[in-house]
């Protein structure tokens, strides 16, 4: 088995090293890194803006580039949080705790280089996991019938929505709303127009790009206009010379890196627990086992190395269920899967055997991309620091233009730009009402496949709902769903009797102590 995996990987390197593929991979990580550094821009918005560009590309190049944006942004986000104390992306919120004190002490360079190293270690492990676990998962998943796929999707949707940030009920509500949005348009089975409200332009359904850019572009801009704090740049002068970590630093951060990697890869295996939870859990764990926990928060190198390693190993690990089962764990993965579907590729267990170039090319490109990122981040650190100072008032108008032209160019249809504006307003209203719109995308992408499999499962069982419990594998997934809901209800009831935490308590500390499992993206 190891041998086949290695030959497949060798084949993957062949694909990823083709000149145009390596170029797209480079473009992806470069743009991702840049966007990660820029305060107020997220990987979701960037991937959606780049999505229309990929229509003209071959599927392999497209997915390599979009995936590159995603993990490139993780590298960039660390720079922002260590040097400016701005957690641009949720997974890096904990990195600020020790990263910024280190910067204040003039050790920002060391923190950055340890971060790059930890990221690389974490990512490498995540990729290795993907190489060996995905074929095994696929072998199991090949036995699945419609009922199993359906219950597995249900589990994925539930986990993705209840374990994410904010209230679990609201998360589920957003997912169901996403499923409904996925229904809009022509029904494939009967040809009926559903929820088109007599608008001809909605016959093909809501456009994925319009939805993503409305929710993560326009709604985000509305949320952050005049709210983005200007970071303190007075400490952030980092030269290449400062980047070399001493032997003691390396020794100090070696085991935290390994521990972070392990925690991250475990988190990746549980659907719905993305990098944010991984980083919070690993920081808390590292603090707990440390002999000097009082150093945490004042500039402990372990507090930077451990969460960064776990973030990256879980980011790479998240690709496992997405690529091998076709079930995305979070909204970024849902978007990548959507990109594949636009290219006409059906996600699911057959993906690896039908499109080995995509899967193994992607895996190989992760190594290449991560090496590129190390090369980009160490010598070019000065450039990234400069980028940190670009004010938001120049960023969002330019980004807004890219949103408009991107949505328009997808189908040469101005109607969809209007669709994006409407979705954006709706997304902002939902944000203000305490909803996190990310699960909408999860439901939207999985919706049509869920309905199709649900119909098929019940057709095969002659309308007997017990089919989901009678079949053993499906029953396990349903049991897990029930367990998930049970835990949430139990946690709710237990918290109900307790007093709410005092408003003065530090937000991050409170989150780690009280509800580590809710902080996800």
């Amino acid at each position: 088995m190891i041998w086949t995996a290695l030959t497949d990987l060798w084949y993957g390197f062949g694909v990823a090293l083709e000149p145009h593929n390596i170029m797209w991979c480079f473009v992806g990580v470069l743009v991702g890194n840049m966007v990660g550094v820029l305060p107020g821009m997220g990987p979701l918005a960037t991937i959606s803006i780049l999505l229309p560009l990929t229509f003209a590309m071959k599927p392999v190049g497209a997915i390599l580039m979009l995936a590159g944006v995603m993990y490139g942004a993780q590298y960039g986000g660390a720079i922002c949080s260590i040097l400016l104390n701005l957690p641009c992306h949720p997974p890096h919120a904990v990195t600020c705790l020790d990263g910024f004190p280190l910067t204040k002490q003039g050790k920002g360079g060391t923190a950055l280089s340890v971060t790059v190293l930890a990221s690389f270690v974490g990512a490498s492990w995540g990729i290795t996991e993907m190489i060996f676990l995905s074929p095994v998962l696929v072998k199991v998943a090949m036995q699945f019938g419609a009922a199993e796929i359906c219950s597995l999707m249900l589990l994925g949707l539930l986990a993705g929505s209840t374990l994410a940030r904010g209230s679990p009920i609201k998360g589920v509500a957003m997912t169901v709303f996403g499923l409904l949005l996925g229904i809009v348009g022509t029904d494939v089975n009967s040809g009926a127009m559903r929820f088109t409200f007599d608008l001809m332009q909605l016959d093909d359904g809501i456009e994925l790009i319009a939805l993503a850019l409305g929710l993560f572009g326009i709604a985000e801009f509305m949320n952050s206009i005049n709210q983005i704090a200007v970071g303190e740049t007075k400490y952030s002068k980092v030269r290449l010379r400062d980047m070399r970590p001493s032997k003691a630093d390396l020794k100090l951060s070696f085991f935290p890196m390994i521990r972070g990697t392990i925690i991250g890869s475990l988190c990746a295996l549980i659907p719905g627990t993305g990098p944010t939870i991984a980083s919070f859990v690993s920081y808390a764990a590292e603090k707990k086992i440390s002999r000097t926990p009082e150093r945490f928060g004042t500039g402990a190198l372990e507090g930077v190395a451990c969460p960064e390693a776990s973030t990256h190993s879980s980011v790479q690990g998240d690709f496992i269920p997405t690529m091998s089962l076709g079930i995305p764990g979070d909204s970024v993965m849902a978007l990548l899967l959507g990109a594949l579907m636009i290219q006409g590729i059906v996600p699911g267990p057959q993906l690896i055997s039908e499109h080995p170039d995509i899967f193994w090319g992607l895996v190989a490109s992760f190594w290449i991309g991560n090496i590129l990122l190390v090369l980009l981040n160490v010598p070019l650190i000065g450039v990234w620091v400069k980028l940190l100072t670009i004010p938001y008032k120049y960023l969002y108008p330019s980004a807004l233009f890219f949103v408009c032209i991107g949505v328009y160019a997808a189908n040469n249809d101005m109607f969809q730009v209007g669709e994006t504006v409407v979705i954006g307003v709706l997304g902002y209203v939902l944000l203000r009402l305490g909803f996190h719109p990310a699960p909408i995308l999860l439901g939207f992408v999985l919706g049509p496949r869920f309905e199709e499999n649900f119909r098929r499962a019940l057709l095969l069982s002659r309308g007997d709902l017990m089919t989901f419990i009678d079949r053993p594998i499906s029953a396990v997934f349903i049991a897990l769903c029930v367990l998930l809901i049970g835990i949430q209800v139990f946690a709710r009831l237990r918290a109900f009797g307790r007093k709410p935490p005092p408003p003065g308590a530090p937000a991050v500390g409170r989150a780690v102590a009280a509800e580590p499992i809710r902080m996800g993206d």
Partner: protein
Amino acid sequence: MGARLKHKRDYYAGALIMLFGLVAAAKGPGYGTGTLMRMGPGYMPTVLGVILILLGLSIAGTALVTPATEDEQLLPDNPQWLGWLCILAGPILFIILGNFFGLLPATFACVFVAALGDKSSTIKGSLILAAGVSAFGVLLFSYVLQISMPVLTWRGL
């Protein structure tokens, strides 16, 4: 501003979700629900609509029993009406000008108006930014990527 709501925020949240559910549950059966074995196109929407109504009820219901939190207002502490207006006006201008006059005026207007939404922006700064983005955008999208939108045109009103 940022006045406190008369009721808790989650009542409104629950009501909105119920509204979505009601629309789906009301329109769904019209498409034909069919039976469990042979589901019609209306089956899924109806079920999802009912689930949404129940979820909306439970969101509002939990708000009944939980104490009010600090963040109970609908608008943020300092509402950015001008900023929001500018952000929404940008794409709308892009649609209108893009339809009638082409890519260049659409881009310029979109970026210029959107940039005015920031508190610290100046007319001059916004003009420069809009000009820069327009030049770059036209170059990239019209000449390199060759999208089908004309750079400059006159389709009358």
